[in-house]
Structure formats: C-alpha cells, structure tokens
C-alpha cells in the first residue's frame, strides 16, 4: 500500500511539474513563425512521402507533429539500443559486469 502511495505521489508530481523541466532546458524560443516549405519535397518514394507528411503536420497540426517527434525519437532510441546491444554482444566483451575502482 505504501509503495502504491509512493508511486501515485511521484506520478502526480511528474504530471504537475514536468513542464518546468523542459522550460529550463534552454533559452526561450523567439517569437518566430516558421512554416515548412512543402513545395520543395516531392513525393517520389516512401522517405520523401513521410517527410512530406511530417512537414504537413508541422504546418497544420503541431500537436500531431510533437507526438510524432516524441514517439519516433523514443522508438528510434530503443531500436538503436537493441541493435547496438546485438552488435556489441558479437565483440566477445563482457558487457554485464564491471569492477568499481575509484582510485
């Protein structure tokens, strides 16, 4: 029960205070209005088609664009993590243990 309470309290704190983290992440963005120039992107293949979709989302629905950015960053990070894990396991190095020596 105590653990559950702790999880709920931490969850609420995260939800309420999270925006401050990002706000503190860098300088304030200047009040520019930026529009992605979709005329340059021709839908010749899947890659450009997806780029066109993202640029359209950026121009028309910024929330959808933001969700795509966050989800894709997380997914790409996890995918790269697993891929690198697989490749590193082929090196023959012990990647599960280490000694802590400070000096």
């Amino acid at each position, binding site marked *: 029960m105590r653990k559950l309470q702790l999880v709920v309290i*931490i969850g609420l*704190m*995260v939800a309420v*205070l*999270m*925006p*401050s*983290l*990002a*706000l*503190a*992440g*860098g*300088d304030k*963005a*200047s009040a*520019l209005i*930026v529009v*992605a*120039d*979709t005329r*340059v*992107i021709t839908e010749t293949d899947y890659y450009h088609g997806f*780029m*066109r979709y*993202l*640029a359209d989302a*950026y121009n028309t629905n*910024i*929330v959808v*664009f*933001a*969700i*795509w*950015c*966050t989800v*894709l*960053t*997380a997914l*790409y*990070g*996890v995918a*790269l*993590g*697993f891929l*690198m*894990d697989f490749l*590193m396991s082929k*090196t*023959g*190095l*012990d*990647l*599960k*243990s*280490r000694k*802590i*020596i*400070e*000096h």
Partner: protein
Amino acid sequence: MDWMIMYMPIAGVKIFWPGLVLIGFAVGTIGGFFGMGGAWMVTPGLNILGFPMAFAIGTDMAHIAGKSMVSTMRHSKFGNVDYKLGLVMIVGTMAGIEVGAQIVMVLERLGSVESVVRWVYVGLLALIAWLVFYDYYKATQKKKQGDVGEHGAEGITWYKTLHKIKIPPMMHFKAAGFTCSAWLPITASFVTGVLAGFLGIGGGLIRMPALVYLIGCPTHIAVGTDLFEVMISGLYGAFTYAIKGRIEIVAVFVMLTGAAIGAQIGTVATKYAKGYGIRIAFGIAVLCCMISIVLKEFKFNQAAAVLILGTIGVICAYIVKIMIQGAIEELHEKKSGNATVKAVH
C-alpha cells in the same frame, strides 16, 4: 559531393549530414562516459554547420533524449543505474527547476537577468572544477598514506557526514549500495534543480558531482543514474519544443545514428576507467565550458566555439582510447585464459 548534403524539411536548410553524425558521435561518447546530456557541446556545433539557432536547442533536446536512452540501456546492463534513486531524485529535481525558473522570472522583472545568470553559471562551474581537482589531490594524498577503502582511496567524503542524518523515511538504494534518509537525495536534487532552472540548463553538469560528493554514489552509478534522469527530462523536453515548432526531426535521427555508436563507446569505456579518471576528465570539460562562457561574455564568440569543439575532440579521443585499449586487453586476457584451459585439458 551532393549526396553529402541533406535537405531539412522543417528548418528549410541544406546541411552537411556527416557533420551531424560526427557531432552525435562525439556527444554520445562524452555523454555516455560522464552521464550528462551535453547541450552545451551540441549547440555551437549545430550553429557552425549552419543550423538556424531557433531549431538548435529543440533539436538538441530530442537528440539528447534518444541518446540517453541508448546509454541508459547499456549502463543498466552493467548495473550502473539505480532506478529507485533516479525516481526519488526526479521529484526534487522538478520541484527545484520550477523554483529556479520562478527566480529567473523575478530577476527578469528587475532587469539584467542574462548577465547575472551567466556569471552565476561561471561561478558554479569554477566551484565544480575546484571540487573535482581538490578531491583528486586529497585522494592521491590518502593513497600515499595507505588510507584506502573498499573501492580505493577517496578524497572528499562529505556524503559520510550527510548519511548520518537519520530523518525518516530511511531508504536503501541497492545498486548504489547505501542507506540514507530519503530527504538527502530529494534535497540535493532540489538544490541542483533550482540551479538548473535558474541557469536554463538540463542539469547533468551539476547533478553528476552532487550524486558523487553529496549523495555518495560511486562514480559509475552516478553516471548511469544521471543518464536515466536526463532521458526522462529529455523526452518531455522533446515534446514541448516540438509543440513550439522548434525541432528538426530529420537532424535528430541523423545525429542519433552517430550518437548510438558513440554512446556504446562512452558507456563501455567507463568499465575500463577508474572513478577518478572519469572525474578528472569531467573536471577538465567543466573548466573548458567555463572558459568558453567567459569568452562569450566578452564577445569572443569564435574563440569560444573553437575551445568547445577542441575540448570535445580531445576528450572524445581520450575516451575512445580508453575503450579500445581496455577491450583489446580484455579480449587478450580471455584468449590467453582459454589457451591455458585448453593446455590443462
């Protein structure tokens, strides 16, 4: 050479993409080794490549989130991440950042906030650098006197005094290997959060030494746990900057590809480095960061960028050397071990 130029659909600029991969690689390596996001390194690099400043910070934030994810996964396998400590600290960090941001708002109303923030930043970095080098000096003295603990000689041990405070609830942090009042990490993260919020930075640069000197984490655990925090804050940062329209997602992916390789090198290198090796390299990075801010304050922008990029290059080469040397030695030992076993049989 046209294939080396990539069009960024959101920012509307053409960028030399191998440069992005290189920046990602360097920051991935350094971040994985020190346990920080490294925003102070990426922004000048992006700017030099021709990235509009409006997009640099948001793009950097998203890249840091993805990169920290790769590093945290690797550190987690080594047992370098204390998730319980990380979660407890997030509470203090966020509350602290909120307070820090409010202080900035008050200062903004009073005027001249930028200069105040910059000089506080310089003072803080000077303090951290002094702390790191003084700690090293003390540890060396102790080692000479034969005063060596479980993990080797230690210089500054403020955390031992702080661990004596027994205000409930007491918490045991298994991976970090100590028990202390929950208020210690919460207070330390709150104070570092206030500073991060006030200075407008992610906070890894301050949190890492706080984890080592105030909370008492072994250096390797401090690096892994800090990266876990950077990952969470970076993901939220990516979302809010995207809402503001300040992310170039294609650049994030390109940088992440380089960062994923760098993160492996930086993280695995911690295995072959002594805690104080990491601390000293960190101290040098902090010192260079401080000098670059002073140079910027006096409008030597080009010199500041050269110093930052030079520091990145040198530290990155140092980490790669540790990793390669350590890996070769380990594989050699394994090989000779196998040969001995075969000879016995």
